[in-house]
């Protein structure tokens, strides 16, 4: 018979559980704004840039790859945002160019000497890689995000709905954009090692997108998104533990099921 509490006996599972509890509400929270701002592509590019972040870390011999990753992510986010502001080509094209270019650089550096498979784990993620130190980082980012949300959400939302109007109300629209991009970059980088590059974007987008199918107002939108995110995180983690599969994909599968359920609910009730 299956023992539903056996996972608690393992240190790595307790660490992973803690990480999921900290990080999934953030995914749900930030996801709402990413979906509203139509930034899915942007966060995807950020996830992919993690590869280059690691590569850059190795080239410069940084103490550990994750420091280099975070620095690189912030720089990349600012750069991406800056490019997105100029209206020369359509933003999605520019982001795509950026993203492919950064992936290519990362792959080129990491595959030097034919040793890319050493880093292949980053693609699907590995929950065993979470260390106590990373939990501390995650907790810090959690605090920063919550404070940012409490203080800046109205400004962020206003600038998302109508930039010119927001600017006329003396809201620092550009600053909010940059801060938000950097925050997303930080969270993506800190969780990429266990979620995996291939699917991290799904975790940001799916809960918020599902929530949008149900919610009638901003409060519900946030609440549902966080609930979905935490729910898929915990269920995904436990299912992956018992079925011996990678955790990130399992979380995304659960989140996708939620999305499709809400999608059909909305379709039926919309008629």
């Amino acid at each position: 018979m299956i023992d539903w509490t056996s996972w608690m006996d393992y240190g790595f599972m307790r660490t992973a559980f803690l990480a999921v509890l900290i990080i999934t509400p953030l995914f749900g929270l930030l996801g709402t704004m990413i979906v509203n701002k139509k930034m899915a592509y942007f966060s995807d590019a950020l996830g992919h840039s993690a590869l280059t972040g690691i590569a850059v870390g190795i080239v410069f011999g940084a103490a550990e790859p994750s420091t280099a990753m975070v620095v690189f992510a912030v720089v990349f986010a600012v750069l991406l945002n800056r490019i997105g502001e100029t209206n020369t080509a359509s933003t999605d094209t520019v982001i795509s160019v950026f993203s492919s270019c950064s992936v290519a650089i990362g792959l080129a550096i990491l595959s030097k000497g034919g040793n890319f498979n050493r880093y292949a784990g980053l693609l699907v993620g590995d929950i065993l890689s979470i260390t106590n130190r990373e939990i501390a980082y995650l907790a810090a980012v959690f605090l920063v995000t919550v404070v940012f949300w409490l203080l800046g959400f109205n400004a962020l939302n206003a600038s998302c709905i109508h930039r010119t109007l927001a600017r006329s109300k003396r809201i620092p629209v550009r600053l909010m954009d940059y801060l938000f991009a950097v925050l997303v970059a930080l969270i993506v980088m800190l969780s990429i090692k266990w979620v995996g590059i291939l699917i991290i974007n799904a975790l940001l987008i799916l809960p918020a997108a599902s929530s949008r199918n149900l919610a009638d107002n901003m409060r519900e939108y946030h609440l549902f998104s966080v609930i979905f995110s935490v729910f898929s995180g915990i269920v995904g983690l436990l299912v992956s533990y018992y079925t011996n599969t990678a955790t990130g994909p399992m979380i995304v599968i659960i989140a996708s099921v939620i999305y499709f359920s809400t999608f059909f609910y909305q379709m039926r009730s919309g008629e």
Partner: protein
Amino acid sequence: MKRKYGFLCGMLLGILFVSAGLTAWYVSRTDGGGNEQELTVVTSFYPMYIAAMNVIGDTEGVRLSNLSEPQTGCLHDFQLTPEDMKLLSGADIFIINGGGLESFMEDIAADYPKLSVIEAGKDLAILPGEGGENAHVWMSVSAYRKQVAAIAEMLSELDPAHEAQYARNADNYQKKLAALEKRQEALAKQIKGTPVVLLHDAFVYLADDYGLAVSAEMNLDEERQISAGEAAEMLAQIRADGVQQVLAEESYGKDLGEMLETEAGVQVLYLDVLNRGVYDADSYLDGMQRNITLLEEAFGEKQGE
């Protein structure tokens, strides 16, 4: 309004129960059911498993399992799954190859300080290889025999109750391996000093056993892409040394092997590196026999001319 919250709760509960049900079903189907009384021996990967399988044989009260292996390639970059951690947490003895192959050993030593580790390749000369050490020692029959001996000795030390049985089983296996070695030696006399090209790290030990002269070497695995420059260099080397035989591993060396066959007219032998296969006690013997037969055929032809 109310309907929406009802749907929300229903949906989440539904997903929870369905996933719990499916998980329970899956676990009940795959669970072997461990016995606390048994001595649990875990091996790090295939060749160690086969060696331990022969030493342990049908010894009562000893359970042998292998870590979940990567489906492709070598162990170098393998990451432990939660299932492996569970397996190791219930294990008494962990048999590894050593030589840097088990890159996760540091974590394990820290997480399970009580686990007894047998490093079968500890006393063997590990050759340097690409990116560190070349740990494919089991490809040399003589080295593999020492590994088997080391496993038997350490197992007896850790589990003295079954010492006689381990010794008997190891003895039997050593006899079969000795026959294999004899066959190898006979062939080695014929082919000593022949220049060859190796397309996999593992064959360095094999070439060592036969005294083959390695003209060029490349370690091809799933992520290794060969550049045009490297291929040209290798072709030049083959021509310069008059190499006629290339030793390659089927799954990764095939493309380059075929290219060398057409470009340089060499004969490419696809040998088994014995790092995965069926979980049968004789699979190492069988695999090595096949390798030797292939070599005999290839080099024998040449001798006959």
